[in-house]
């Protein structure tokens, strides 16, 4: 699916884990993120072989994201189950809007 539409797998994996595998929302987000590591690595290698990676830019973004990720994890931990579900549902609808619009 990520190769098909250019979107990361997380937006599909989280609802699958919640609605089909019946994980709670917190476990679904964390588990999806673990799978994203492998999917991202596979994709990055594929693009790197074609020379389609800007290592300098990736380094700068990662410099920031390595600080942001523990912060995001803390926010998730402190967000109640119901609110996290609603927030993710809204994110899905925004992504759908972007797909239809672009």
């Amino acid at each position, binding site marked *: 699916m990520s190769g098909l539409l250019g979107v990361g797998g997380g937006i599909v994996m989280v*609802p699958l884990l919640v609605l089909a595998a019946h994980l709670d929302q917190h476990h679904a*987000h964390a588990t999806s993120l673990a799978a994203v590591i492998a999917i*991202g690595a596979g994709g*990055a290698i594929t693009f790197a072989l074609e020379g389609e990676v800007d290592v300098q830019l*990736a380094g*700068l973004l990662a410099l920031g994201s390595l600080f942001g990720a523990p912060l995001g994890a803390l926010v998730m931990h402190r967000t109640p189950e*119901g609110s996290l579900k609603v927030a993710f549902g809204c994110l899905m609808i925004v992504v759908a809007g972007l*797909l*239809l619009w672009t």
Partner: protein
Amino acid sequence: MDLSLPVIVGIVAFGVSVGVLSALFGIGGGLVMVPFMVLLLDEGPHLAEGTSLLVIVPTALAGVAAHARRGYVDFGAAALLAIGGVLGAVAGARIALATPDDSLQKAFAIFLILMGARLIREGYRGRARG
């Protein structure tokens, strides 16, 4: 790329918000990084996708490390998803190349709206209960 200091600071700051979104929602963050690179940094779409995928790896590792400390990661399910995801990515690329119009994209958007609406409804019910 020739970067001035304010641009470098802007990119790193954007990276922080990518990290927050990624760990909070369990997504890679390519969704926000690719448009950022294409629209604001004038990168080509393929270079933006490749660069975004490279950033996703350390970002997701840092997020998972923090989640795992709190016991949130189901590693067995993650391994199954990763295998499915890598196979799906290869198959998906082929289907996309063989499909001339954007009907798949529209179908996927409708799928997201339906699933998203279901999550929102469940979330409100859960809050009403708890």
